[in-house]
Each structure stands twice: as C-alpha cells, then as structure tokens.
C-alpha cells in the first residue's frame, strides 16, 4: 500500500516537472521599467536652429535612473524558503512501544534539526501570493524619478543663474508599478536514513509586472514647463520626442529556480540541554528564465547550521544561521538567520513564529537587510495529511522590495 502511494507520488512529481518545464512565451519582463521610455531613454523635442539642440540632454540621466529602479525591483524578487514537517511515531526503546509524536509539527518557513525519518517521503504543494507594495519604503504606486540635465557649457556644474540656468531644469517621472508573484511550489523531501534527508523545491511562478509613468519638465524652482527663453521652453516634449506618458509590462508563467537541498542531523538527543544540531546545504539552480523574472539567473549555494530542542514535549525553539553564496555576483552573498519556535497548541495543531533575516554585507544598498516576522499554523486533521497556512510580515518596510504581507497556504502528505 505504502509502495503504491509512493509510486503515485513519484509519477505526480515527474508530471509536475514535465508539465511546467516548457519555456515561457517570448517577451522580456526584466527590462519593463528600463524600457518604459524606449531603449534610448528619454529624448526631448529637437529645438529648431539657431538654438542648441536639447534633444538628448536627459537621455543618460533617464537611462541611469530607470535602469537603477529596474535593477532594484528585479533583483529583489526571490523564492521563499520551504521545508517539511515532522510527524508520525518515534520508538521508546525502554518500553518497547512506538509513541505517537507529541511534538509539534515543525516550523513553516525555517528549519528544525530533526529529519523526516528513514525511507519517508514528504510531498507538499504550496501556494504563495506576493503583492509587492514598497520599494525602500516608497509606495510602488507612487514612485518618483528625477532626471537631471547634463552640463551644457562644460563648466562641470549645473548653472542656476545666468544664461545657462536652464541646466538646472529637471524631468520628474511619476511611476506606478504593479508587481505580483503567484508561486506554486512542489516540495519533496525523502529520508535516506533516519538522520539524512534529501529534497527539492520546484516552483512554478506566475509573475505580473505592469508600470505606467507620466513625465513632466520643471525648472529649478519647481515651476512646470521648465526654463523658457521668451515664450519658448528650452526643454519640451513634442511630436518628435519621447511621449511623456508611457506604460509597459505583462505577465509570464513558467518554471522558477529549482532548489536542491540536503540536511544531515549530526547530533540528536545528546542530553537535556544541548540542542539537536543539523547542517543543511541548499543549491538554487538557474532554471527560471531570468529575463522573464522567473529566476535569478545564477546558481546559489547555501550552508545552514540548524539548532533546535524540544522542551516539555511540545515547545521547540530553533535557530538557523548560514551563508548564501551567489556564484555570479559575490556582492549578493547573504547571511541568513532565523530565530523562532514552534509549539503544539492542540494534539493536531501547531503554531509557529519566527523572525527571519537576510543580510548582504556587500550589498548595493537596496534591501541589504531584510527582516520578516513569520506566523503560521499546521493542522494534522487525519493521519499523514497536514494543512498549513502562514503569513510573512515585514518588520522593516524601508528596506528593499516588500509586500505588506505574504500569505502561504499548503497541503502536505507524508508517505
């Protein structure tokens, strides 16, 4: 019976991988923001002779500003971490009887040192919705970029007085960005031995990125229209310039970055004080299309030390500490940590709370230190079936690309 169920699980896994492994539709979401005003950046209406042409004076600044925002947004999109539960029986050697696990079912997004158990297979489907609302504390629906004009007379500064005071004109672009991710993840964990688990996470991501922008020219005092010579504005939009109103984006569905993971529980039940310890190694593969924002485009390696200990048979505090190496850009290397607990509230109900952090020591300044609070429950209504629900709440919305909250629901079965 167990073998048959495992076979069914294996077939489902293969179908899942094969079904979604097909490439996404053509198109390029990654540069949606950068290309809002075209790949050349913002070009103004050519000024008729005998004036100097102002057509490309904001081009570099607009390209740089949009590119920076584009990178800030796209580099911050990632896959949440997942794990498997701990359920079933343990064996009491002294009494010679199996004991139903009265511990809690384990944390939701972080790790506990104990493993699944030899020859056990845990299959989990989760759905996570991420609706990003803030970038570095700013509302994604109300972003503003300011493009500065380049130096016309070559004196190295933007003149604020005199005939070249128009150098201090600026273009302000108001942007509204709608960025959401729906992640369907298939998570498999198999216990090779009672101390050693191997597993994978196969995410299927639907991402939607739409942006609209409205640009306007201002002089150094904030007056609309910018500096004028007589009635003629020095900088202006017109029929031959970039349109001040722009929009772009779309949505894509496809395979995300697959994660392979293994956990070895090298210390268990040593005594009443020393915690159980495990080492977890994770490899994120660049299987998601980076250009469609379905993947990060690089291979990441993570080593994580996990410590946990169950007290009073129902309360398990845990600590995770590790380092993630981004093999394509070492500035993205991240220290990962989590501190929390999971506790059995009722015999079939577990509550978990964690503070989860990611810190990039050499980061770019955007989202270098992200801290979330994770709250969730696991419910074991029948035998090996576990239902899970979790919400991740940012503790600091001023760092990086953030959602107001990230809900995750899932269903898990242990074969």
């Amino acid at each position, binding site marked *: 019976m*167990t073998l048959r169920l495992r076979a069914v699980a294996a077939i489902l896994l293969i179908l899942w991988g094969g079904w979604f492994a097909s490439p996404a539709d053509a198109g390029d979401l990654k540069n949606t923001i950068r290309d809002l005003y075209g790949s050349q950046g913002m070009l103004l209406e050519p000024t008729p002779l005998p004036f100097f042409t102002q057509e490309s004076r904001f081009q570099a600044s607009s390209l740089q500003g949009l590119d920076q925002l584009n990178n800030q947004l796209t580099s911050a999109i990632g896959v949440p971490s997942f794990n498997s539960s701990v359920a079933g*029986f343990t*064996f009491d*050697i*002294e*009494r*010679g*009887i*199996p004991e139903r696990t009265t511990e809690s079912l384990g944390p939701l997004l972080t790790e506990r040192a104990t493993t699944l158990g*030899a020859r056990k297979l845990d299959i989990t489907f989760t759905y996570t919705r991420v609706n990003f609302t803030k970038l570095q504390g700013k509302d994604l629906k109300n972003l503003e970029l300011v493009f500065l004009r380049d130096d016309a007379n070559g004196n190295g500064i933007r003149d604020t007085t005199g005939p070249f005071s128009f150098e201090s004109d600026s273009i302000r672009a108001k942007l509204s960005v709608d960025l959401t991710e729906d992640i369907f993840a298939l998570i498999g964990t198999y216990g090779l031995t009672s101390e050693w688990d191997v597993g994978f996470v196969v995410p299927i991501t639907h991402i939607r990125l739409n942006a609209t922008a409205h640009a306007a020219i201002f002089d150094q005092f904030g007056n609309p229209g910018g500096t004028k010579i007589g009635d003629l504005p020095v900088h202006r939009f017109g029929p031959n310039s970039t349109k001040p109103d722009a929009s772009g984006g779309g949505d894509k569905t496809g395979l995300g970055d697959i994660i392979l993971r293994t956990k070895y529980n090298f210390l268990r039940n040593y005594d009443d004080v020393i915690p159980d310890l495990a080492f977890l190694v994770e490899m994120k593969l660049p299987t998601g299309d980076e250009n469609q924002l379905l993947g990060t485009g690089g291979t990441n390696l993570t080593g994580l030390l996990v410590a946990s200990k169950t007290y009073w048979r129902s309360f398990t505090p845990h600590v995770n500490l590790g380092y993630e190496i981004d093999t394509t850009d070492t500035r993205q290397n991240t220290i990962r940590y989590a501190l929390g607990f999971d506790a059995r509230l009722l015999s079939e109900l577990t509550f978990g709370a964690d503070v989860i952090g990611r810190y990039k020591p050499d980061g770019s300044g955007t989202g270098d230190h992200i801290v979330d609070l994770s709250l969730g429950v696991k419910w074991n209504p029948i035998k090996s079936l576990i239902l899970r629900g979790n919400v991740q709440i940012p503790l600091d919305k001023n760092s990086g690309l953030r959602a107001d909250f990230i809900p995750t629901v899932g269903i898990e079965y242990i074969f």
Partner: protein
Amino acid sequence: MQILTTRTVRLILAACLLGAIVHSSVPAEAARIVALKSADVDVYNEVLEGFTSVSQRSTISEYDMEGDLQRGKQFLARLKSGPKPDLILAIGIWALQVVVEEIRDIPVVFAMVLNPTTVIGHEAHNITGASMNAPIDQQIALLKKISPHVRRIGVIYDPSKTGFLVRQAERIARDQGVRLVTKAITSSKDSFAALDGMQGEIDALWILPDLTVLAPESVQYMLLFSFRNKIPLLGLSENQARMGALLGLSFDSGRDIGIQAGELANEILAGRSVEDIPFTTARKVRLTVNLKTAAKLGLQIPKEILDRADVVIR
C-alpha cells in the same frame, strides 16, 4: 538373487537421484509471508529489512497498522477471508496483540516485542518470535563483572508485568552465584519505599523493562539511590546511561532482530513445528558505559567491559 537385489537397489537409488534432480530443477513455490507492522517507525523498518535479507525465497507483503489496533484487526479479517499466507510476521507489540486475538491457524513469528509472554497466552501454539529483550544471563554477568563485591542484585518489579522475568532471573542468578533481592510493587509510587527498604541490602541495582517501574519518577529515584549508596545501576538503554546509570544494555539493532525472526520463519517454513521453537532474546546487544558515573561511584571499570562497550560516556 543377490545380483537382482543389488540391481534393484541401484535402480531405486538412480530413481531417487533422478527424482531429486527433477525436483530441485523445478523452483519450489515461494512462501507467502504477510508482514504486519505496528507503526511506521525506523526500527520496525529495519526489522523488515533484516527479515527480508534472510527470506530470499519468500514473497513478503507489508501492511502498516499505523498504530491503530482496529485497523490491524480489519486487515486480519480481510486476510482470513482470502487465501491464507504461509506465515505472518508481526512487527512490534501492537501487531502481536491483534495477531494473538485473531489468528489461530497460521504460523506467526513476532519481532521487536518486549516481554512477549505478557501478550501471548499459553493456549497460543502457533506463535514464536524474536523478542527485543536483552538476555538476562548477560545482564547479571555484566553486573558481576563490574565489581567482585556484587553478590546481591536489587530489583523492583510489578508481578503482573514482569513476574515471569523475575522468576527466570532468580534461577539464572542462583546459577551464577549471586542473589536477587526483589521487591514487588503494584504502583510506581511504591517504588520509593521499595528502594528505601533495600538500603544496605544490595550491591547493585537492575532496572527491568517493566512499565510500572519505568515511570519517570521511579527511574529518577533509582538513579538517586545508585549515587547515594554508591552502587552500580544497570539500565535498559543508552538513554538511561546518559541520564546517570552506570551501564545501559539494550538490543543492538532492529535489523539483527529482524534477521533472528527471519531465521525462525525459515525453520517453520522448512517444516519445523512452531511449538518446538522457543522465543529468542536479542542475539547482539549494545552496551553503554558511563565513566562519569563510575568516577562518582568510585568504581574502576574493568578493561574487558570497556573493550566491549559500544558507547563510552566520558
């Protein structure tokens, strides 16, 4: 006449040889074994692995009771209504309990059961198996080897649970030249008075696999008694040795118990009567020695014991 007789004998021998060759060249039908597992725990899976490794010529179907006696009974009811298997392997005490109740006419081998006689009645003649109990003689011998002063071994027990074990142990202790000082209790609360009554009367203390005695407060008091009176305590597991018992002796592995059960099954399938096959105890044992405790008790552990210890807590 003599020639004819010799020819006849040769003919018969040749026929027998031919028959044997023909018989051996046709594969015998594989024995059908149903393995009923009490629950899905690692050690039971190891038992099944060990059993399978010595039962190459059998077809083994596994069924997991998932810790539910009713589920086990329903399975056995279905089993009885169909073609009968040649043998049932009952892994763990819950599987044995339902098999004892439901099965009378199919040979049963149990494995990984502690104190099986508490489950199997005298009327059950179709059951044998490999218990997970450590051999009593080894436990008594171990305590004797720890110190030449060990002449009296204290034991508290609940007669309804381990009375049979104590009777065996008294006999074995006598053979080994030591005396078992026993105190019967019926509740874990009685263990305190029972132990207090042994003060000055015993040279070593032995924890039996008795559910009444194994109440946490009783075990704690036995550990305390051992330290206060500076006498060695023999526990049932590495865990108890880590808690402070001088020694812990348990079965070595589920796999080995499974192999023992497999060997018993092979004997039955080869035609030996189940009634003629006695239960076995763990053939391989795992010894833990706590040297921290030894130091506190002022005991020097003999090298022979340290050499055979699987785990030494320093």
